[in-house]
């Protein structure tokens, strides 16, 4: 792998070892299920076997009477939360929904919806107790498909939900929560100018994030407060949710994030955490809850399955004149499909004059969708990139050239009105064209596909503290669970600022009571936003250190600068004093004013989007429909790779998840609305032997709004693979595929139907 590490910095951009590496590979790291407390109970959840049913009654008396059962809860044990006033922003946090998802109130809305939970002295007793809980259900008609759910006679999940914008008093209840829309220019005019207009429909299936670690937590509670240890993408957000759902003061709850065995967006929502706290409160003993894989699949965050209609018009020279996209997304049991992000990103790799996008956020009897890596975008991009590939073929223009003709550049404004700063999309496409993979020969039944993608990234609130010890070593405290190597990147940036050895910076992830609010590890925001907070905290610590040197030298603060890990005289005093290292200044701290530290509390803005493009070769077994992925190269504008190893890991991981999404992964329901494949045997994520080494080609166009040029890298790489892989299959067999997954039975049938 080419080492594209720059030489500008000492630690930033280098392949530094992970501060959390040894503990993770030796098994010492504590994940969500790894905490054991004295007297700890086992919590288990009773889940609905029905897709849609009214709960007529729940009788927990037999379970409560079982020896060893210490607490049993149902929705009656949690405060009822009133319906909040709408409308909600793009990040919907409707705590009433969250409460009803955590524990069903009047109705169960999906197979796996929690209806009760127990805490007992052993797993065996807990499981026995679940069997003793009697739930009387009135089974209701259910609906799984969003298009079906939009029909007038569809079963309605929420009697009090009307489509946003309708009058709540007069409108009929609807499964459609809202129809967001965005436009730029005039698509009618644009389509009229086109020489060729292609309009196609695409479908994708609900897919799960597939993190290896199931959701797990341990809760303890007393009258003084609550302690929660859990696997999460955001301990502060969890804390707020638990407080809201349990009616507690936020400051009474302390949440400590465990190490996290994958999240990909799926560990943003809370599920068992408030339940464990409530059980712990009632039992007055610690309670651990660990989901089984079956529970993870049935009741936690898949992303939406989608119906997408894309229409694009272009001139003969390849200029796209108009683009239109309509999305129908499954929200699951409660509103909140990621349509806004899809609208924002789907056409955003391109510089287009006329765009119109809209979508339907539709409730269906499935688990509520959760964020999944570039939430909402891959499904829409599958359609957009598919149509662009077809346009290229129809116009007789190379697929990369067509994208180059329309590529976004600095100054391009996307459909949301966002104006791009420096953006590396054109440079990346040029690199792809020049890459040996692009023109490598293909054998029989082999095909090459490509597609592009874009993700917008998040900023947001972060805190950081840099505490200098009296030996000059540094504890860096920040508040984001480390999913992709963020400790290493934070430490590298702080070491770079302070001018000290990377190994002298120990990054620590704070619990919610030891550092101020820090938003989620999500939206590829951590290295950007929290990284910025760490840099500012380091700079504030440097300011303190310089002040101390000034004090010792008897000069003014302006006459001291920080260079290469030392305070140096910089005014008329140059040459009067020996530079002092951080360790030397720290050793004298007790005499000069006390501890040396720097802090930062920020709300980061100015995040830069990232574009990517993927190139993939496959071989199709025409007789069986089996697809083998032969070669895969990811190209991405990464801004600046603070930790190139972990950036490459992100790009490879996104590609592999996308390959699984493209080829085999899907939620399969039976006719009663029960999930048929809640396990890794029949929910087929790729295994190691299914994918080749994923090659990575990083393009660095720094984001000017970050001290080190960070853009965020983790989400863009899951946007192109679906369309790229499907395009490679198309190229291999000469047929179009517009329904994911492009699984062997579909490929075989298409080949057979075409007479092959």
């Amino acid at each position: 792998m080419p080492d594209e590490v720059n030489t500008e910095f000492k630690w930033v951009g280098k392949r530094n070892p992970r501060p959390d590496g040894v503990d993770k590979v030796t098994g010492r790291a504590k994940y969500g299920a790894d905490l054991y407390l004295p007297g700890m109970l086992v919590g288990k959840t009773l889940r609905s076997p029905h897709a849609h049913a009214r709960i007529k009654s729940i009788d927990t008396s037999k379970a409560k009477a079982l020896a060893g059962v210490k607490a049993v809860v149902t929705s009656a044990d949690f405060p009822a939360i009133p319906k909040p006033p709408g409308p909600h922003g793009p990040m919907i946090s409707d705590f009433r929904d969250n409460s009803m998802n955590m524990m069903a109130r009047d109705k169960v809305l999906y197979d796996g919806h929690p209806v009760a939970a127990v805490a007992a002295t052993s797993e065996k007793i807990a499981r026995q107790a679940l069997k003793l809980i009697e739930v009387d259900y009135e089974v209701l008609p259910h609906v799984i498909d969003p298009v079906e759910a939009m029909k007038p006679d569809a079963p309605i999940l929420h009697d009090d939900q009307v489509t946003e914008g309708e009058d709540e008093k007069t409108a009929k209840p609807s499964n459609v929560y809202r129809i967001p829309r965005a436009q730029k220019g005039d698509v009618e005019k644009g389509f009229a100018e086109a020489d060729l207009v292609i309009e196609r429909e695409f479908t994708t299936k609900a897919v799960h994030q597939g993190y290896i670690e199931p959701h797990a937590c341990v809760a303890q509670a007393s009258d003084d407060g609550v302690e929660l240890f859990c696997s999460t993408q955001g301990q502060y957000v969890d804390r707020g949710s638990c407080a809201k759902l349990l009616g507690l003061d936020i400051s009474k709850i302390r949440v400590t994030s465990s190490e996290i065995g994958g999240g990909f967006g799926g560990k943003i929502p809370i599920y068992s955490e408030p339940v464990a706290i409530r059980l712990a409160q009632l039992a007055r003993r610690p309670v651990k809850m660990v989901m089984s894989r079956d529970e993870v699949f049935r009741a936690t965050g898949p992303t939406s399955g989608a119906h997408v209609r894309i229409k694009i018009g272009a001139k003969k020279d390849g200029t796209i004149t108009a683009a239109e996209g309509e999305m129908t997304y499954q929200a699951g049991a409660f509103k909140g499909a990621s349509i806004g992000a899809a609208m924002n990103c789907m056409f955003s790799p391109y510089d287009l004059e006329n765009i119109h996008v809209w979508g339907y956020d539709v409730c269906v009897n499935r688990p509520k969708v959760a964020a999944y890596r570039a939430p909402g975008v891959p499904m829409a991009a599958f359609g957009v990139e598919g149509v662009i590939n077809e346009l290229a073929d129809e116009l007789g223009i190379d697929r990369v050239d067509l994208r180059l003709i329309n590529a976004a550049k600095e100054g391009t404004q996307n459909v949301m009105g966002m104006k791009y700063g420096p953006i590396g999309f054109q440079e990346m496409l040029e690199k792809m064209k020049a890459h040996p993979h692009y023109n490598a020969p293909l054998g029989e039944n082999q095909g090459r596909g490509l597609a592009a993608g874009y993700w917008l990234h998040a900023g947001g609130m972060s805190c950081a503290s840099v505490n200098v010890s009296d030996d000059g070593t540094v504890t860096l405290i920040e508040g984001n669970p480390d999913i992709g190597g963020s400790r290493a990147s934070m430490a590298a940036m702080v070491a770079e600022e302070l001018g000290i050895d990377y190994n002298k910076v120990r990054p620590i992830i704070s619990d919610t009571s030891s550092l101020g609010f820090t938003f989620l590890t999500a939206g590829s925001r951590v290295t950007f936003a929290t990284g910025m907070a760490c840099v500012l905290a380091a700079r504030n610590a440097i300011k303190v250190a310089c002040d101390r040197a000034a004090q010792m030298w008897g000069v003014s603060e302006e006459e001291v600068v920080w260079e290469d890990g030392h305070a140096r005289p910089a005014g008329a005093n140059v040459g009067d004093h020996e530079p002092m290292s951080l360790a030397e200044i720290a050793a004298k701290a007790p005499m000069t004013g006390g501890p040396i530290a720097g802090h930062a509390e920020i709300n980061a803005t100015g995040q830069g989007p990232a574009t990517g493009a993927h190139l993939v070769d496959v071989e199709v077994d025409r007789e069986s429909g089996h697809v083998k992925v032969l070669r895969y190269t990811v190209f991405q504008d990464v801004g600046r790779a603070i930790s190139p190893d972990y950036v490459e890991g992100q790009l490879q991981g996104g590609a592999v998840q996308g390959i699984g999404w493209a080829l085999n992964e899907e939620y399969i329901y039976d006719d009663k609305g029960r999930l048929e494949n809640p396990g890794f045997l029949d929910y087929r994520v790729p295994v190691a032997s299914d994918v080749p080494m994923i090659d990575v080609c990083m393009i660095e166009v720094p984001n000017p709004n970050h001290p080190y040029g960070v853009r965020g890298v983790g989400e863009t790489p899951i946007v192109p693979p679906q369309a790229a892989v499907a395009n490679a299959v198309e190229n291999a067999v000469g047929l179009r595929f517009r329904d994911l997954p492009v699984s062997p039975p579909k490929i075989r049938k298409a080949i057979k139907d075409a007479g092959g």
Partner: protein
Amino acid sequence: MADIQYQAPEDLAAASALLAGAGGKARILAGGTDLLVQMKFDVVEPTLLIDIKNIAETRTIAEEDGGFRVGAAVPGAELGEDAALAAAWPGVVEAAELIGSTQVQGRASLGGNLCNASPAADSVPAMIAAGAVARVIGPDGQRDVAVEDIATGPGKTSLASGEIVASIFLPKRPANSGDAYLRFIPRTEMDIAVVGVGISLSLDGDGVCTAARVGLGAVAPTALLVDAAADALIGSKLDEAAMDNLAAAVSAACSPIDDKRGTVEFRTDIAGVLARRVASIAFTRAGK
């Protein structure tokens, strides 16, 4: 979930007595790669586990009458390490080795794969093709049963109360014989067969097929022995017409269901495709 007793007797008669005495609440533990998963998901809730791995007969591979007697609990990894067995019955060994991961291979056995009675069991079509015979030990003594007669439906066997499969006999091979097994899975490993086909055949000096057996998995409630498919090969040199007849006979024998692992149409179609490929491999092996 009831309390579970664990017993590890050292002879088959004791194991059989324990099993018979448990009134259907006992399970035989060989590798446990199916049983433990079923227990975890409450599919079975045994009160007694009878571990047969301390019984010598279940753990050894022995040559017998020119063939091989393979203990029911011999793990897949050991089958592959037995050079003579792997040379004589490469199809059976490769089928067993497809089961699970490297870790699972250290435990999973032919006996367990057979008695779990999954229609999709990888080793079973290969054993059926091989003409393998299970030795069954029970309260009334021992009997030998063709492997295709063990499973009677998904998860169901013809074994009577107290009966245990102790070993599997793979017969002596005539000269110029070969076998092979292929399965279709959407992934490359760690998956369960959507269709599995095992074929064993013998050739005469001119390369004409004189005997054949075709075993078919995952397309019916049990793995099948398909005589019509064998008949398509016998008397031929596996020319295109014979292969067409083979594929047609195999597809005709399929009575699969539409499920999460494949459609009826796909399974029926792929069974024929795989049969051609398997026959071709077995033919090449027989000619060597």
